[in-house]
């Protein structure tokens, strides 16, 4: 005996449903995040103590009489060493978090066993990764906002520039930073010991991009290499935007390379994803761990 089935499934794709889906993912991510008791530390304590290590080091280097500081001001052109350092460390943390969160998003689903179910749903599969970006960006905005707040309140760090310009820089950086994350997400599924690669990439950012020092201080060959890392432009651009009252014209030398690298890494991310997907279909590796 058969009951009659509806001839159409209940799913009705469309713009509104995409927005709804996005919001649902946001809510899910936030719920899961706050269920781990350590979320307060991740959101409020880390933004404070990670830069503090370098700031305290800078204080020590300044010396009790500030003689070291004078040298620093000459070398970097920046009077506010705290603000200078925070920009660098925040960018580093941004890339670091994206590598872990976005990079391991597919792998985590695989470990939980839910990757297959997601794969079977009738959605454009890359949107799964894109969908990760939304909540991720929201949490990064919170993270950066909290950093600014904490350092503003505790250390009197003040912006000498336009918040809009800073936002513009960050917006321009999104393709690069997340493109890298996407490329990672696809690699992580197929590669063992993906952790080592995260350490490598964030290590390179740490060494070459001038997180706590001006890139100009690096030896020539290292400076040349730094030019190939989008984070270099992001850090420099954000420092300029935040502390020297710059307008778009002054920021172009950083914005343009950032956007170009962004397009590049997005493309890499997308094609790596396609490659991984094709490979997984051939080898059936999606369901395995």
């Amino acid at each position, binding site marked *: 005996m058969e009951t009659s089935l509806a001839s159409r499934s209940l799913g009705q794709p469309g713009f509104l449903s995409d927005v709804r889906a996005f919001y649902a993912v946001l809510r899910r991510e936030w719920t*899961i995040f*706050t*269920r*781990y*008791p*350590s*979320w307060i530390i*991740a959101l409020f304590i*880390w933004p404070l103590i*990670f830069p503090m290590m370098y700031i305290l080091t800078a204080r020590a280097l300044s010396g009790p009489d500030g003689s070291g500081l004078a040298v620093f001001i000459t070398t970097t052109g920046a009077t506010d060493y705290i603000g200078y350092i925070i920009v660098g460390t925040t960018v580093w*943390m941004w890339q*670091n*978090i994206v590598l*872990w*969160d976005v990079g*391991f998003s597919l792998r*985590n689903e695989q*470990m*939980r066993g839910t990757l297959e179910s997601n794969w079977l749903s009738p959605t454009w599969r890359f949107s799964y990764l894109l969908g990760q970006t939304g909540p991720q960006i929201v949490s990064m905005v919170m993270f950066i906002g909290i950093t600014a707040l904490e350092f503003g309140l505790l250390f009197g760090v003040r912006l000498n520039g336009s918040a809009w310009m800073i936002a513009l820089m960050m917006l321009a950086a999104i393709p690069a930073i997340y493109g890298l994350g996407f490329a990672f997400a696809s690699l992580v599924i197929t590669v063992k*010991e993906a*952790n080592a690669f*995260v*350490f490598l990439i964030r290590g390179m950012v740490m060494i070459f991009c001038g997180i706590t020092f001006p890139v100009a201080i690096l030896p020539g060959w290292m400076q040349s290499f730094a030019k190939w890392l989008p984070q270099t432009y992001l850090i420099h651009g954000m420092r300029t935007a935040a502390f020297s009252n710059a307008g778009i014209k002054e920021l172009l030398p950083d914005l343009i390379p950032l956007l170009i690298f962004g397009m590049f890494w997005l493309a890499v991310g997308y094609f790596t994803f396609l490659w991984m997907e094709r490979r997984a279909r051939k080898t059936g590796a999606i369901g395995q761990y």
Partner: protein
Amino acid sequence: MSQFAVEAHQLVKKFPARPGTGDRPSPAGRGDTGEGSESAPSPKKKRWQFWKKESKAIFTAVSGVDIQIQRGEIFGLLGPNGAGKSTTIRMLCTLLEPTSGTAHVNGYDIVKQANDVRRSLGTVLAGERSIYWKLTGRENLEYFAALYHIPTAIAKKRVDELIERMELKDRANELVEKYSTGMRQRVAIAKALLARPPILLLDEPTLGLDPQAARNLRELIAQLKQEGHTILLTTHYMEEADQLSDRIGIIDTGKIIALDTPAGLKRRIDQKEIIRLEVSGWQAYIGEKLLALQEVENLVAHRQAEADLWEVNMQATDSRAVLPKLVESISQNGTRLVNMNIVKPSLEDVFIHLTGKALRD
């Protein structure tokens, strides 16, 4: 030397009901060599309940278990999931401290002489997760042999012996992560046998094994008894308990509700016969109707794998007399009797008789 291999007196285990803590991979941290871990999130308290005083919920897993296992016997602890089997075993092997009560393993007190208890035991608990996946089978065995204080020369021979016996020789030098589940289970068993312990504790050893592997394992258990081991076995497979055990303890909701030889247990409901029906289109009200019949007792209905087919077991004093009434009650309103059997009582029926529910979940 104590008369009994294992002796437990009024073992009780109560757990405070606690939300678990979880671990989140720290995003800005350095991480570690292994894979990141995920665990169940702790339940979130509703905000408005915060001011209410939390009553301490206590869950009693084991509520007064008495066991005496003779040396050289296979003792089966049989019961459904959640009955308290694993908790009992964990107390006996010193991983869990009892709330009250005492127990002696090989003559040693489980609380005060824990180390001696561990020396006397070989335990198989979690099967494939209980060994190192990044070590070979052989390396795993050599490692644990040393932890059990087996002198090196003896250990080497013993490891070779066990690898041979558990049929791991071909792949003993491959990493365990490449083994099948069955092979990993064999490594876990070999590990339990390393120190040639007088007493073996096996917690659901055939769970997750394919039928052939399970059969091999049961043969092994029988052999081990021949070699002089005392074995405490937990299972929820009644055929397994029936086949292997010298004596069986049936445990349910933390208490042992029956303890006897398999034959002795079945004799308890000997006067009764078991009527086993296969019915399609079963409805609950039919069960009530049948139970209302004087001759029928302990009716349990189980939905089968095939969509609309149910297995209905009941006990009856005189099955011939009651049969016509059964057929009449059932063949109505689209319900159909597909198959019928009158059987001798099995352990499962004993269990149903004692508890009113089925052994399988």
